[in-house]
């Protein structure tokens, strides 16, 4: 009985959503359809800075476009993927609970393969040309997969190491040096347990730094000899693990947990995916003021992160308008502000006016903890098909001790 009432309610709610047609090529029809919509945006809610920034975005799109933006905070975006999957199996094709989602390459690959995404739409956004895609091909590629307009670039990330300079004078700058350093400083470094995002990223970073043939990592894994390519990685980890935190018997759950261990002093060397995160951690009293950050000499893994729209989103027009606003110079500059979030912009400075460019200049506080500018060689993400075999090989070797 209770469920029939829910059914009725759902039917009643669904009616006004159906009539809102829009034409992607005619942007004004999109903003018109978007006006008055409520957009449910699923995004990781684990960082108060990110949450604060999304709150700001919600105020802006409310004032500019009459859109009510609701941040659906998830601990892991896979929770949202599960729900969309449940909706698809239930035949829910146009009244999905999620309108916009912040996803990474692995989830993007899985969702695109299963037709769980709406698109293409991203390249039709008025602000997309500001990313200068011809000069910056990485905004059209997610973990080597062509994006094809199914998601819109939002920010940049790059593996950045950080250390407490009061305890570590000269940090290791490549993978072999890291092993030597760990031998001399037992228990002061670790990496999160794969398949957490940071853990798997560390495996990829180490593999890129150790293998003789990095180029095969950019092809599907089926075309390569997995055993031979990854053998140096496992040799390396076998040697490294006894010198890790808790002797490699226990691993932190994720990147944020690793930052907590740095703040507690249990670790003296760690890494993050957001180059400004260590400086932000100092500002937020989470890390020692003597924290310094740097890139590895051989280059570090970097990627662009995106927002996507599920195939059954109920408020697609609203989601597109929000995605377009996220790419605007104003929103991107506010996001890069160290006191707000510090996430690097995806816009190409050459496409902006001098006045707009000025907004992206970094400010002074905690600047000592920022990594040196333009010093990090960017390594592209390997093909996503490598992820699952890497993770399961890791599980086989170290998952149960």
């Amino acid at each position: 009985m209770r469920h029939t009432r829910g059914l009725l309610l759902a039917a009643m709610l669904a009616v006004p959503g159906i009539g809102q047609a829009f034409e992607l090529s005619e942007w004004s029809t999109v903003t018109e359809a978007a006006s008055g919509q409520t957009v449910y945006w699923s995004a990781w809610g684990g960082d108060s800075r990110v949450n604060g920034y999304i709150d700001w975005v919600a105020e802006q799109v409310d004032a500019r476009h009459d859109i009510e933006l609701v941040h659906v905070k998830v601990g892991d975006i896979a929770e949202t993927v599960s729900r969309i999957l449940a909706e698809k199996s239930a035949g829910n094709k146009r009244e999905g609970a999620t309108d916009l989602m912040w996803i990474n390459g692995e989830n993007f690959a899985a969702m695109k393969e299963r037709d769980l995404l709406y698109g293409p739409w991203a390249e039709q956004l008025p602000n997309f040309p500001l990313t200068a895609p011809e000069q910056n091909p990485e905004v059209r590629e997610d973990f080597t997969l062509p994006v094809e307009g199914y998601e819109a670039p939002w920010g940049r990330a790059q593996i950045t190491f950080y250390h407490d300079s009061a305890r570590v004078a000269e940090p290791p700058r490549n993978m072999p040096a890291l092993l030597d350093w760990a031998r001399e400083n037992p228990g002061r470094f670790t990496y999160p347990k794969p398949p957490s995002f940071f853990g798997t990223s560390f495996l990829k970073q180490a593999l890129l730094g150790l293998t003789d043939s990095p180029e095969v990592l950019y092809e599907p894994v089926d075309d390569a000899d997995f055993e031979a390519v990854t053998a140096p990685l496992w040799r390396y980890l076998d040697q490294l693990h006894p010198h890790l935190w808790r002797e490699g018997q226990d691993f932190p759950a994720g990147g944020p947990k690793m930052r907590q261990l740095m703040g507690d002093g249990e670790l003296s060397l760690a890494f993050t995916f957001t180059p400004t995160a260590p400086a932000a951690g100092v500002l937020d009293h989470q890390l020692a003021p003597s924290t310094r950050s740097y890139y590895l000499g051989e280059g570090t893994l970097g990627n662009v992160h995106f927002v996507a729209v599920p195939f059954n989103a109920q408020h697609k027009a609203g989601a597109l308008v929000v995605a377009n606003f996220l790419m605007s110079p104003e929103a991107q500059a506010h996001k890069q502000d160290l006191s707000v979030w510090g996430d690097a912009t995806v816009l190409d400075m050459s496409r902006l006016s001098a006045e707009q460019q000025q907004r992206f200049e970094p400010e002074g506080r905690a600047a000592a903890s920022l990594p040196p500018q333009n010093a990090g060689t960017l390594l592209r993400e390997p093909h996503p098909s490598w992820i699952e075999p890497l993770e399961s090989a890791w599980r086989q070797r170290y998952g149960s001790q």
Partner: protein
Amino acid sequence: MTAALSYRLVIRSLPWLTIGLLSLPVFSGLAGALAPAFGWLPALGGEQLSLAPWRELARVPGLNDMLRLSLVSGLGSAAISLAVVVLFLGSFLQSPVYRRLRRWLAPLLAVPHAAAAIGLAFLLAPSGWVMRILSPWLTGLDYPPDFAFPGDSWGLALILGLVIKEVPFLLLMSLAALVQCRADERMTVARSLGYPPLTAFLKTVMPGLYPLLRLPVYAVIAFATANVEVAMILGPTTPSTLAVAVVGWLHDPDLTTRFMASAGALLQLLATLAALLGWWLMERLVVRLSRGWWQDGRRHCGERGWALVARWAMRLVLGLMLLALAGLALWSVAGYWPFPQSLPWPPTLGNWQNAADGLLSPVAQSLAVALGATLLSLVLVLGSLEAETLRRRPLRPGAQLILYLPLLVPSVAFLFGLVMLQAQLGQQPGLLAVILGHAVFVLPYLFLSLAESYRRLDPRWAQQARSLGAGPWRVFMGVRLPMLLAPILTAAAVGFAVSIGQYLPTLLLGAGRVETLTTEAVSLASGGDRRLTAIHALLQLALPALGFVLALLLPRLLFRRRRGLLLSH
């Protein structure tokens, strides 16, 4: 006559609604997990039944360790908690220590599992509060040592975390059961025959008490073998417990892992059932072995030693809990707080100020959900109990089991199936769904807390009112409810606290649109800022505590001219 008829109709239908609310979600949720476990999930291309998910599950490295860990931590924590409670009750039942402890029970129960676990982790970690207080003057350490606790591979930290939450729960459940099995009378008789307290308790009260405690103990075992939050914070990682692994698989970006995850969820159900079966067999064994001992007439069983153990174990449980909460309070006012400083200096209110803006909505939504779920459960529970007085007999064992269903079936096993069902029925995720979902977990606790007082109310009050011409509704509203107001409010406060602490049902049934203090706290805990987590955990604690205070004060306020009502039970 119509009033009497409507009374009968309403009261007789409420137990059925209760049974429906409790069993429908659990069974349909289990069915929702069953199909993918055997390869059926058309949205992922699974269109024929197969055993492949189970074969894949069997190949997971360390599966045996996961099962062992779940079983050992579940059975171990239940056994330790029960032992502490029984020894404590036996040694101190008729002493002032027991009465003092009773006052602490409700607030202790109000501490959410996640908050207690986070606090305990900070207390005992290598960089935790204990090590900070001892460093560097005693340990000589300027930087934290490197030892694996919490997160030790035996699961000791996990067991400890479970015990400090289960002891108060079992104590609360014993309160009603002790009265029901006439513990005081039994003790008095045994004491007059020369048995000292503990022996008297074990030989005369336990045989009557345990059958009444059995289902609560089973609920403890079920929770301890299958819980996710505590095991995530205090349990080991290589491997983790089965429940944590299942949640991990359900969240794997590789969508085909969902099949294996469903098989894992069912395996979790089997593991929990196996733990319950193992416990039941142990019960039989203990009964058989101790039969002679009950009647051997010996008056002593190492009284003093056990009393000492019980007193210190209880102190340890309470002390750990209080220190864990104190640690959280300190973090909420901490700036940068490095090892080995034992206090955050200077303290700051900045964290609270920064968090204040974002707290309004989660507090409001927590309140809305908790009040809604508690009210709904209260109506159903009162109806079911009133129906008992109508039929003049208590619940059948079958109905009793249904009451415990949501506490016995691991929620990872049925909640995901429930989300499928929710999507299939086209019910919008949101406040209403979350309230219904919470009621499934709130109702059993509310029932358990209220049933005893309700059944003990002297039926002659009602008979007297009827003989003075009052109709059945008037007797119910004007006599029974006011007389029972105090226990009803206490039970409502327990239900309210249960609702505030729910994580998975809120997250899944609300599709993340309903943000409560608990969902905020857990998602922030993944972000690693202990200051914010501490603030949320403290608020998560403050709301239920407020509920308990209201439950205590309201009757006194309402009945200040009718003080006799406060003493009627």
